[in-house]
């Protein structure tokens, strides 16, 4: 039998229909084929055979579609009937799944948004940021820095043919003045191929030439609107002044779209920096790191291969600089970081342009989303298997009538899919209603525009199909396996294995819920600790007014005495840095008794008089800054206890010792108690507070003494505007700034709370459904027990016992998991709460209580019912 009909054609034909009639027809075809083969040859025979495919396929396919549609119609009908018949089950199922979907979709949106950062740049996959490790220069727990020398970009492009484009940008705050209106805005100083690497929409101007003019400024659309209204800004001049800097006139050369929110840096304007005096200096100086360097590699260049060349490159230029000649061990090690990783994987880098996301949260949220969806699916499975008892008869009848196992599986899976489709509809409504709240919660701009995209619907439908299949699979497999004769004859009840499986599902759900609850409590306690802990600095009612106008600092003394006349103002002081976050650090090498080559890394904060008193910083030895004792010739320093132990002095020894920082020579006049001048993530490091004149100050600090805060603020604004007209008045309260530092933690706390509540709701819905079912199953038993003399309490405890045992087991499983995860999270904080047992006990009792309420609602009702009712019906 060498000559068979074409394989493919035969396969198609044999797939068209399954029954015996068709098989004999295929046999006929083959026989006839053999006949034709002998008579007319292979080609003709094949042609004939294929013709049969064309002839039969269409009608057979339509036939099959028709019948599966017909069967589906029946499944749908049965599904809707059983939904209607058991309203509370249906509600629990649909609502539970809808909540699961809502969480899943919202978190999905968040994650998608997080992953979308910087991907809008056309060459984002080939673009890298140059980052550096600076050995020995540990700052806030890491030796890694996002900043690089200015000369890096241009030199990389010149030396390596692999580099297609290179650019740098630095952050700047500038005062922009047009028609005597001044705006304090943040922007970028950029150079090189900035617009070849970063893609923005151009409204006006030419991306290739806009930056080449040394006086160029490119505005975002919003900024252009603010400065020039509807006029065409191209060619117009803007007076630009760096904070504390010189004024120059810039010419607008382009207007681009506002940078998308999902970008790791933001700006209102971009300018060319070649006119500043630092420009030439920076291009030579390799030890000054103050800008971000980006390169785009040519197509096909492996970034890993390329970054191996960077250390050699650095040796050529950086090692040659004076500083590194003297300190060769501090030579930085450069490497590349993919642009698309910048947002999520920059936690270890110091000085990111703005606060970044965290890949950890992305992972954590994904896990939570999956877990909640899983819980919701588990609910469905759990309820369906419980209900299998009532539907077992239906299965039996269907089997007797001739349903195959595959039909039954299809039926149950399509029922689950119908429920999950219904819940998608419910979920969509919930999402539309709550998306704005959620966006605010996660601090990202998520829009419901996705409902218009087909991708979303494809995703939603496939998720719901998947969820339906997952949650329908157990009942499908289990119910379809039952033997019809057994079901119909002996009222087969769910076997032991079934009960075990159901219990296991409940345990899993409650374990997850309790773990989330523990997480919630821990995050809440830690946040509470952050807010209530005494950092050693009084933050209440202190306003920091940031200003850079030199006129204001010239008349600072007058302003101060003027303000102090107001009874609402208790103290006035000044500082160069944000008092909540004194993040500037320097290396000192001059103090009393210093040995040759000895150095100390110390944080430094230059402040004005009354700073210590205003913020209530405790002096443990010596004195505070004092106007009476002020000498022009010597600078007064305060150091903290941490610095003291580094310097090796006792409190009293230290007073009067000579000390020098930032080129200011003077003496130590007092010791301050250690206080948190950075954040609670870090241990307290050495710090010096330096008394300084007003020239370099940035913040006017005002302590308001009473509750008339709004009035006092208005007064402050008026007084300051009077001295420096045309300058924006920007202020912040210290306690707000303090809370801002922990915003991501606060956010995490809130999100955790929501998820915990949701998980608890879903788990309780599941428990409630199960309790309803089990009590219904046992109605007769309870009736008999009551007739025989059991009281209500005994019956309630009988019914509740089983469920509460499950919650108890979940608790035992959840505690170690919760402990481990909480411990992990708390590691991030140098200052943290300890994991006390009450956290776990509290979570346990809370869950237990809610579970008890849930179950009791049903069991009390059953226990109180009249036994006559349940026993008379047979």
């Amino acid at each position: 039998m060498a000559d068979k009909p074409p394989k493919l054609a035969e396969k198609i034909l044999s797939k068209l229909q399954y029954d015996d009639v068709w098989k004999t027809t295929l046999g006929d075809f083959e026989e006839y084929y053999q006949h034709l083969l002998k008579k007319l040859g292979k080609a003709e025979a094949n042609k004939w055979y294929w013709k049969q495919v064309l002839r039969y396929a269409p009608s057979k396919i339509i036939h099959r579609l028709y019948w599966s549609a017909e069967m589906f119609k029946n499944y749908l009908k049965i599904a809707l009937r059983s939904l209607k018949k058991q309203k509370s089950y249906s509600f629990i199922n649909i609502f539970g799944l809808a909540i699961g979907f809502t969480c899943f979709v919202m978190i999905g949106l968040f994650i998608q948004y997080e992953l979308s950062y910087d991907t809008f740049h056309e060459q984002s996959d080939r673009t890298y940021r140059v980052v550096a490790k600076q050995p020995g220069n540990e700052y806030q727990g890491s030796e890694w820095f996002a900043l690089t020398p200015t000369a890096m970009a241009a030199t990389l492009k010149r030396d390596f043919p692999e580099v297609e484009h290179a650019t740098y940008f630095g952050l700047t705050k500038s005062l922009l003045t047009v028609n005597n209106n001044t705006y304090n805005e943040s922007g970028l100083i950029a150079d090189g191929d900035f617009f070849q690497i970063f893609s923005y929409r151009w409204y006006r101007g030419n991306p290739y030439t806009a930056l080449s003019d040394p006086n160029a400024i490119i505005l975002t659309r919003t900024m252009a609107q603010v400065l020039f209204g509807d006029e065409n800004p191209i060619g117009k001049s803007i007076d630009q002044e760096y904070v504390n800097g010189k004024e120059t006139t810039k010419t607008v050369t382009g207007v681009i779209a506002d940078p998308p929110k999902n970008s790791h840096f933001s700006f209102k304007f971009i300018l060319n920096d070649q006119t500043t005096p630092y420009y030439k200096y920076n291009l030579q100086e390799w030890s000054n790191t103050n800008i971000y360097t980006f390169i785009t590699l040519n197509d096909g260049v492996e970034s890993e291969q390329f970054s191996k060349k960077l250390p050699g490159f650095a040796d050529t230029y950086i090692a040659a600089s004076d500083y590194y000649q003297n300190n060769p061990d501090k030579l930085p090690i450069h490497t590349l970081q993919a642009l698309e990783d910048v947002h999520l994987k920059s936690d270890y880098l110091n000085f990111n342009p703005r606060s970044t996301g965290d890949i950890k949260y992305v992972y954590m949220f994904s896990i939570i989303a999956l877990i909640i969806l899983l819980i919701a699916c588990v609910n469905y499975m759990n309820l369906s298997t419980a209900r299998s008892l009532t539907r077992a008869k239906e299965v039996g009848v269907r089997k007797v009538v001739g349903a195959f196992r595959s039909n039954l599986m299809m039926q149950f899976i399509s029922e689950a899919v119908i429920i999950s489709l219904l819940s998608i509809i419910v979920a969509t409504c919930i999402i539309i209603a709550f998306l704005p709240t959620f966006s605010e919660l996660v601090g990202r701009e998520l829009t419901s525009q996705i409902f218009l995209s087909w991708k979303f619907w494809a995703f939603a439908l496939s998720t719901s199909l998947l969820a339906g299949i997952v949650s329908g699979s157990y009942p499908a497999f289990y119910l379809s396996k039952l033997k019809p004769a057994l079901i119909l004859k002996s009222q087969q009840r769910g076997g032991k294995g079934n009960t075990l499986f159901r219990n296991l599902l409940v345990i899993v759900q409650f374990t997850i819920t309790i773990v989330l609850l523990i997480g919630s409590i821990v995050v809440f306690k830690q946040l509470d600790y952050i807010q209530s802990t005494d950092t050693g600095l009084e933050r209440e009612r202190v306003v920091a007014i940031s200003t850079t106008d030199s006129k204001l600092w010239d008349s600072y003394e007058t302003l101060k005495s003027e303000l102090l006349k107001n009874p609402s103002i208790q103290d006035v002081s000044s500082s160069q840095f944000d008092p909540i976050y004194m993040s500037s650090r320097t290396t000192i090498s001059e103090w009393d008794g210093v040995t040759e080559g000895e150095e100390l890394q110390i944080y430094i904060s230059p402040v004005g008089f009354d700073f210590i008193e205003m913020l209530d910083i405790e002096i443990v030895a010596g004195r505070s800054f004092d106007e009476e004792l002020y000498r022009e010739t010597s600078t007064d320093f305060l150091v903290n206890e941490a610095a003291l132990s580094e310097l090796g002095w006792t409190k009293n020894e230290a007073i009067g010792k000579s000390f020098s920082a930032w080129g200011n020579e003077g003496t130590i006049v007092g010791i301050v108690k250690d206080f948190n001048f950075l954040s609670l993530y870090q241990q307290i490091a050495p710090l010096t507070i330096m008394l300084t004149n007003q020239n370099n100050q940035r913040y006017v600090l005002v302590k308001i003494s009473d509750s008339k805060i709004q009035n006092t603020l208005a007064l402050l604004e008026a007084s300051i505007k009077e001295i420096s007209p045309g300058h924006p008045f920007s202020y912040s309260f210290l306690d707000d700034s303090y809370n801002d530092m922990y915003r991501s933690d606060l956010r995490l706390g809130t999100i955790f709370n929501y998820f915990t509540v949701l998980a608890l709701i879903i788990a309780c819905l599941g428990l409630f459904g199960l309790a309803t079912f089990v009590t219904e199953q046992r109605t007769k038993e309870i009736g008999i027990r009551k007739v025989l003399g059991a009281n209500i309490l005994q019956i309630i405890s009988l019914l509740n016992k089983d469920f509460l045992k499950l919650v108890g087991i979940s608790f035992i499983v959840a505690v170690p998991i919760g402990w481990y995860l909480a411990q992990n999270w708390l590691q991030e904080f140098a200052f943290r709460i300890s994991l006390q047992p009450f956290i776990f006990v509290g979570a346990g009792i809370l869950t237990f209580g809610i579970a008890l309420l849930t179950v009791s609602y049903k069991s009390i009702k059953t226990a109180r019912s009249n036994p006559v009712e349940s026993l008379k019906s047979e």
Partner: protein
Amino acid sequence: MKLLTRTEEFILLAVWKLQEEAYSIPIQEKLNEISDKEWSLGGIYMPLERLEKRGQLKSYLSESTPERGGRHKRIYKLTPDGKRALRKIYEVQQTIWAGIPQLMFG
């Protein structure tokens, strides 16, 4: 009872004549023999099915052979109804042809 069509008549006759060998392909060959027309395989399935539905034919599966790819044959058999229908059409023919002189065909 409705009279058989020509095709149906041919098929029933073929089935009757073929006896145990009455399945699609020999039926087709037989039909080709009886009439001048070239019958397609597909062309005989429909009337076969119709006749079976009407109860004039019945079918059963017989042995499979290698040239059929191991598939069964579907053997058709005349039912009493089928025989009656054949007899009826034979009688009708006799009646309508009666009295037509032989010389018509000369």
